[in-house]
């Protein structure tokens, strides 16, 4: 009896040991693509990438804060949980009606009457790009893993659908167009996934048209996941199955060399981790492009970014590769930079950072102000931190006072503004809203000092006039001269007499008009400038030829209490826009506003000086502006 019992015990123990050994030795990676759909890009764990799932158990806090960030949801598989657009709420553009429908977990985009015989045409949503400001929906084309774009984009905060071309500052187009099929596989994948590989076998063959390319697109992970910033984690995961190794690092406090920790890199290298996406980059050679198509980016965190990608800077424009690009597309530079080389499009903050003296001569990096994982000590809700991923206190002057002397710079003697006012904030003067993207103005990440001279040379709004919207360039130049000995430039009659904001708004290019349309809705500027004079000029922008400018102007207009309920069809025909403008003027005339303000073109009777406004409008810079993200 005893012997038999012992044998059973031994057998059980042996089985247990074998089971544990098998668990430990077995490859924990399952072939992710075996059961994956065949009609859209898929996630595959290869090239030493393991996915965030492997990080969660050892780094629960970091995983959780990343999970709550918009980096994770940059790309998602579309289903009932992830689609933000309202279900079965029709919307119309150009006489056609659309709606989202739900069948089980699937979400479909229906175009009423678009199918044969007036039947509805339905497309099942496969993927989503974006989750913070807007969602772009993609469907499976049925041709390899190629995705097609739904031509309407859902704005999350506004809870509104808009045509896809209206989300970018692009020249007016007669029709609503979606991106070419395959645009996700070729373009979005670069920065909206972790280690994406387009994999198009026909690419480069002369007889295959772009639209006929097939794709076997795969990524390490949808969204910007752990390994985008820490590098491939397979070795780290395997090595740290050994508890002795883990506790060795815990007790010694030494960093684990099997994984990259951006916070421990130099300020240049850590910023380049962010720069792999937040920069204007080009391939050096055609072969590099082919290499990326097949195998993904060769850049890994901790490496020098410029070794694998060309970081585009205006000062390098004579470089043969950049000359080649500029020759192919004459507007190449102006679509990305102001004429002095400061970046003017959003999402390219690294380009601004590397031109900043604090980076060049100091140790400023992205991580000086931003944290990719919310600190456990940060009292803000995760959702609040996720908006801009700023460290605690970095919304105030603390960001700069980490290095700069508060006694010298954080005083009215330097700021010339009351201590608690928005004008005393370092970033309101040194990081004004001069980049454009996703239907708004975004702070420049090239930290510099405001000058009127730069505004005259480049057309870029200076910080003074972007907040003091009712003041002239002459006023700003005089203040800068008196306070900081900045030489006052020579100004024209209009620059001395008309508010700079109106000059940019009425005679600027579409990029300047978009920035002004946004600035007239910026609370700080409205407080500093008064807002009673603004509606006629925002009304003028409701007739702007650029969809995005009209959209932003309407949004700013609704900031005024009298227009909070303003219903404006920004994508309507010309007559609708003109009628909207007239309606704004009519309503504004009935509102109290201060008369005799010549800088903002208000005469002694409180009416707009139409002749001057129209004269400035005739000077409008109508060159084609294309500020894509």
């Amino acid at each position: 009896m005893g012997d038999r019992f012992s044998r059973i015990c031994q057998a059980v123990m042996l089985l247990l040991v074998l089971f544990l050994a098998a668990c430990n030795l077995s490859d924990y990676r399952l072939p992710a693509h075996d059961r994956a759909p065949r009609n859209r890009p898929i996630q595959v764990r290869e090239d030493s990438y393991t996915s965030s799932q492997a990080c969660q158990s050892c780094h629960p806090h970091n995983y959780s804060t990343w999970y709550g960030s918009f980096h994770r949801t940059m790309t998602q598989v579309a289903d009932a949980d992830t689609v933000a657009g309202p279900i079965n709420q029709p919307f119309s553009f150009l006489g056609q009606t659309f709606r989202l429908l739900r069948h089980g977990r699937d979400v479909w985009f229906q175009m009423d009457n678009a199918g044969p015989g007036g039947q509805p045409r339905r497309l099942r949503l496969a993927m989503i790009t974006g989750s913070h400001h807007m969602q772009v929906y993609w469907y499976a084309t049925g041709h390899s893993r190629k995705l097609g774009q739904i031509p309407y984009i859902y704005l999350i905060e506004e809870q509104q659908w808009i045509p896809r071309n209206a989300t970018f500052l692009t020249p007016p187009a007669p029709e609503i167009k979606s991106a070419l099929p395959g645009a996700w596989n070729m373009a979005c994948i670069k920065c909206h996934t972790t280690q994406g590989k387009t994999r198009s076998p026909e690419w480069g063959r002369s007889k295959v048209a772009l639209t006929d390319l097939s794709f076997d697109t795969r990524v390490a992970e949808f969204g910007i996941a752990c390994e985008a910033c820490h590098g491939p984690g397979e070795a780290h995961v395997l090595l740290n199955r050994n508890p002795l190794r883990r506790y060795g690092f815990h007790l010694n406090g030494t960093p684990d060399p099997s994984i990259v920790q951006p916070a421990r890199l130099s300020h240049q290298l850590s910023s380049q981790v962010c720069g792999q996406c937040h920069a204007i980059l080009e391939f050096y050679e055609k072969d590099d492009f082919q290499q990326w198509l097949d195998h993904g980016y060769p850049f890994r965190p901790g490496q020098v970014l410029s070794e694998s990608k060309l970081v585009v800077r205006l000062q390098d424009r004579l470089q043969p590769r950049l000359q080649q690009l500029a020759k192919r597309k004459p507007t190449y530079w102006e679509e990305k930079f102001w004429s002095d080389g400061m970046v003017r499009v959003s999402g390219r903050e690294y380009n601004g950072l590397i031109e900043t003296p604090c980076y060049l001569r100091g140790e400023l990096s992205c991580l000086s102000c931003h944290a990719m994982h919310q600190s456990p000590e940060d009292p803000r809700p995760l959702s609040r931190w996720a908006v801009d991923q700023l460290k605690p206190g970095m919304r105030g002057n603390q960001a700069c006072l980490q290095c700069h002397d508060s006694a010298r710079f954080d005083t009215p003697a330097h700021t010339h503004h009351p201590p608690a006012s928005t004008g005393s904030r370092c970033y309101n003067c040194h990081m004004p809203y001069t980049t454009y993207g996703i239907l708004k103005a975004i702070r420049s990440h090239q930290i510099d000092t405001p000058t009127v001279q730069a505004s005259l040379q480049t057309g870029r709004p200076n910080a003074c006039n972007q907040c003091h919207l009712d003041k002239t360039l002459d006023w700003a130049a005089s203040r800068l001269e008196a306070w900081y000995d900045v030489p006052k430039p020579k100004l024209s009659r209009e620059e001395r007499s008309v508010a700079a904001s109106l000059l940019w708004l009425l005679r600027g290019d579409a990029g300047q008009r978009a920035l002004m349309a946004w600035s007239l809705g910026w609370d700080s500027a409205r407080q500093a400038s008064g807002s009673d004079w603004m509606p006629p000029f925002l009304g003028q922008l409701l007739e702007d030829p650029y969809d995005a400018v009209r959209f932003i102007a309407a949004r700013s207009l609704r900031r005024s209490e009298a227009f909070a309920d303003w219903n404006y069809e920004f994508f309507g025909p010309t007559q609708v826009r003109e009628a909207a403008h007239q309606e704004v003027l009519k309503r504004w005339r009935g509102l109290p506003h201060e008369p005799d303000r010549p800088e903002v073109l208000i005469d002694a009777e409180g009416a707009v000086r139409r002749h001057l406004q129209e004269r400035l409008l005739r000077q409008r810079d109508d060159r084609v502006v294309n500020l894509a993200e």
Partner: protein
Amino acid sequence: MEPDSTPTSAEIATATYLRRHLRFGWWSLLCFLTLGIVLESLHGFKVGWYLDVANETRRFMWTLAHAHGVLLSLVNLAFAVTLPHLAADTVRLARLASPCLMGATLCLPGGFLLGGVVIHGGDPGLGILLVPVGALFLFIAVLLTARRATALRKPASSQGPEATPSGPRKREGRRRRR
């Protein structure tokens, strides 16, 4: 002949172990139930040091400490109740199984508790080293007890009087007479 009412040394020892485990089981049950109440209070007051995701490991460890502590306390009580029913050499069993079981009741939940005090991300503190020691103690105690339980005969109806609760005592008496 009058039955011998004087307790044997084995009976005395068994009674001693029984009392010890009853006492130990009930008091440890009280301790670990109290720990449970403390943990519930931490939930009630939403204490970040316990509930935040960054402290997920601590929460897990202390939950395990509570669960293992309560369960092992009950095992102590079960052990105490089981002792008189086991075969003749109860004392020999108890001499080893009893300290092992008590050691396990201290080491297993204690290891989880201490392991949760200082945590390293997803790893508990070094106190967790007590857990495998406790697990080994528990394994030995349960193995010994299970073996003794296996040695029990079937009930009297099929196997005769020896399988009754008084069976071991009779065997003990026979041995002494010899």
